[in-house]
């Protein structure tokens, strides 16, 4: 008979609501990074549950692979690509949201009431038996004997996923990348020599030297091309006109 000990029950009732709240929060928060962090928390909670139920290997894998690797990768991508704005959530068909919420609540209530009435009705085997030869060994035995075929198929599934990622993300260069030499030649052969010495850095001559403030050109006008393209795409570039130095005498007499 598997009995649920008090410490386990305490832990469950402490962590489970947190996990559920975090999971719901994942859907409600506006920023993708927050959502990702909440997801990581849900995964850690799950890992704790696994470990508490003697599924040590699964718990560790959950933390190492999901929380450690996958989620961090996810966060890296969020930061690198800089997708941090929330998606627009306009309803194309009005009134769907209340209906969906009502349906979800009803469905949830139905489930809870059903599961609340359910009892296992027989002895649970418990992991003690299964783990008699060691947790990892038992898992390995299942994976490499009974479930060897689905296990092999999963490898094909992973290849599919990799291939899919390639299809969706791999850019095929239509023209070969210009070499440095070619770039240099292009700069000097260009219509103006304005960029021959390279682009200005953000903040140069401006009143602020933050990365989102465009540099000022010698004539006092702002140089938007001094800002990183990513910031521009995100709309985080500050309006350059407010940093123009209007008091500077713009009339430059050219001397020979």
């Amino acid at each position: 008979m598997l009995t649920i000990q008090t410490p386990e029950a305490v832990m469950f009732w402490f962590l489970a609501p947190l996990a559920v709240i975090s999971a719901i929060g994942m859907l409600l928060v506006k920023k993708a990074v927050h959502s990702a962090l909440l997801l990581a928390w849900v995964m850690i909670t799950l890992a704790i549950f696994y470990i508490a139920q003697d599924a040590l290997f699964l718990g560790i894998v959950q933390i190492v692979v999901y929380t450690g690797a996958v989620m961090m990768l996810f966060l890296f991508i969020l930061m690198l690509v800089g997708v941090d704005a929330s998606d627009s959530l306009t309803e194309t068909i009005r009134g769907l949201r209340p209906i969906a919420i009502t349906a979800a609540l009803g469905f949830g209530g139905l489930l809870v009431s059903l599961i609340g009435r359910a009892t296992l009705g027989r002895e649970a085997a418990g992991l003690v038996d299964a783990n008699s030869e060691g947790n990892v060994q038992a898992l390995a035995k299942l994976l490499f004997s009974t479930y060897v075929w689905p296990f092999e198929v999963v490898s094909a599934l992973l290849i599919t996923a990799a291939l899919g990622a390639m299809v969706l993300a791999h850019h095929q260069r239509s023209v070969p990348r210009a070499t440095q030499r070619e770039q240099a030649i292009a700069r000097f052969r260009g219509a103006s020599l304005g960029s021959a010495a390279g682009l200005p850095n953000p903040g140069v001559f401006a009143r602020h030297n933050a990365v989102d403030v465009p540099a000022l050109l010698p004539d006092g006008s702002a140089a938007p091309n001094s800002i990183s393209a990513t910031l521009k795409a995100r709309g985080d570039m500050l309006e350059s006109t407010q940093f123009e130095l209007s008091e500077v005498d713009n009339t430059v007499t050219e001397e020979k």
Partner: protein
Amino acid sequence: MTFTAPVLNYAQLAPMLIVLGGALIGVLIEAFGPRASRHASQLFITVASLVAAFAALVRVRNQSSVDAAMGSVGFDGAGVLLQGTILIIALLSVFLIADQENFTALAAAVPGSSEERESLQLDLRVTEVYPLTLFAVAGMLLFPVSTDLITLFVALEMLSLPLYLMAGLSRRRRLMSQESALKYFLLGAFSSAFLLFGVAYLYGYSNSVTFAGIQASITGGSGNDVFLLLGIAFISVGLLFKVGAVPFHAWSPDVYQGAPTAITGFMAAATKVAAFGAILRIFYVAFANAEWQWKPALVLIAIVTMVFGSVVAITQRDVKRMLAYSSIAHAGFLLAGVIALSKSGLDASIFYLFAYGIATVGAFGVVTLVRDSAGEVTDLNRWSGLGKRSPLVASVFAFFLLAFAGIPLTSGFIGKFSIFSAAYETGSTAILIAGVLSSAIAAFFYIRVIVLMFFKDPVEDGTSVVIPSALTTTTIAVTSLITLILGIFPAPLINFIESSAFFIR
């Protein structure tokens, strides 16, 4: 600890292994093959592995065993028939896929960007669709022969993932295509979660994830019925999603419309065969003795699916959407075969799947031919007068529509007759009546298209029927021929199905 090495029956797994092998070779070609010859070599590998898989399947057609792969795969007559159907449909679909006009030049390019234009000018090709198709086919082959819930789940993911991807690769209206792919992916992931939830409950119920174990628990009657009910319900949700039964159909019109037409045809036909194969196996083998638990609900779903699909199809203005709703209605008809829960129901379902799958590939093949300068034309209004422009293509399409409507002398009629009689035989009068009435409704919109093609004057907007490539011609010719032959001389196939279709337990 002792470990006995697993024993796999490689002859019986050969069809799947060959297809997977072909897919891996395809991936290697993508990595190392010269760009110029990729398309040809991929096509060759794909066709060759499908044909080889079919040959391997024919070789073991009379075998049956529960131990094909350590109890994960049940190899039996019904499995052979379903796998064969999937391979034939896949081969015919690959011929359509080979006509790469359908696909985007560069999936990573932002729609409307200069990069996209350049890639179009360079005539780049997404040749990855071939290995992706093969991966999907491998998943489909595994799906109907899985005999435990874990393998079932892996197979489901295996067949879905490539389809999610390929749905987003349309050449034109790319934003819509990508949206449809995303929608398919999200809803698909959601339904997979339901399925997994169901697996957990069934494991809780029976302490087993194999179909045989669940069946033993049901006959033993020791488990908790709430767990069983929840398990069956959630697993059904996951599976019914794949076949597009109401109310889990919401993805199908959008995805059918957004995906490249060749992929739509492949998905509509082959996924339906695979998913219904799995549904048949799980309901006939695992849940058969819990009939009273699921039958009323499934009858309701079947009736709603038939009626909803037929009624909503009437209002569609896009040929691909119309075919999507028609496929929803057909999912309802096919559920009648599941509900029958009898040998004749199984036979009828397999026949229906074959007939419907073939006709669907053919119909979508025809859709790929109607184009204007910008590409395929799917707006039904612009199909008017097609019979005047190209009588042959219009006649073939009309023939497929008549087959969908179930007019005698087409395969659809024999299928409808056998599946409804099987359902009625086991007492489902409601199914019979609903089926007949929704067939009448469905006839309306099929005929509307025929009227449009033959009795309306053509609109002069550059819509025309392109001269099909040899491969597309082959597909359309073969599918229409099979549809006709199965309408007139169905006896050989019916006899074959009758003698070999059974589920090993």
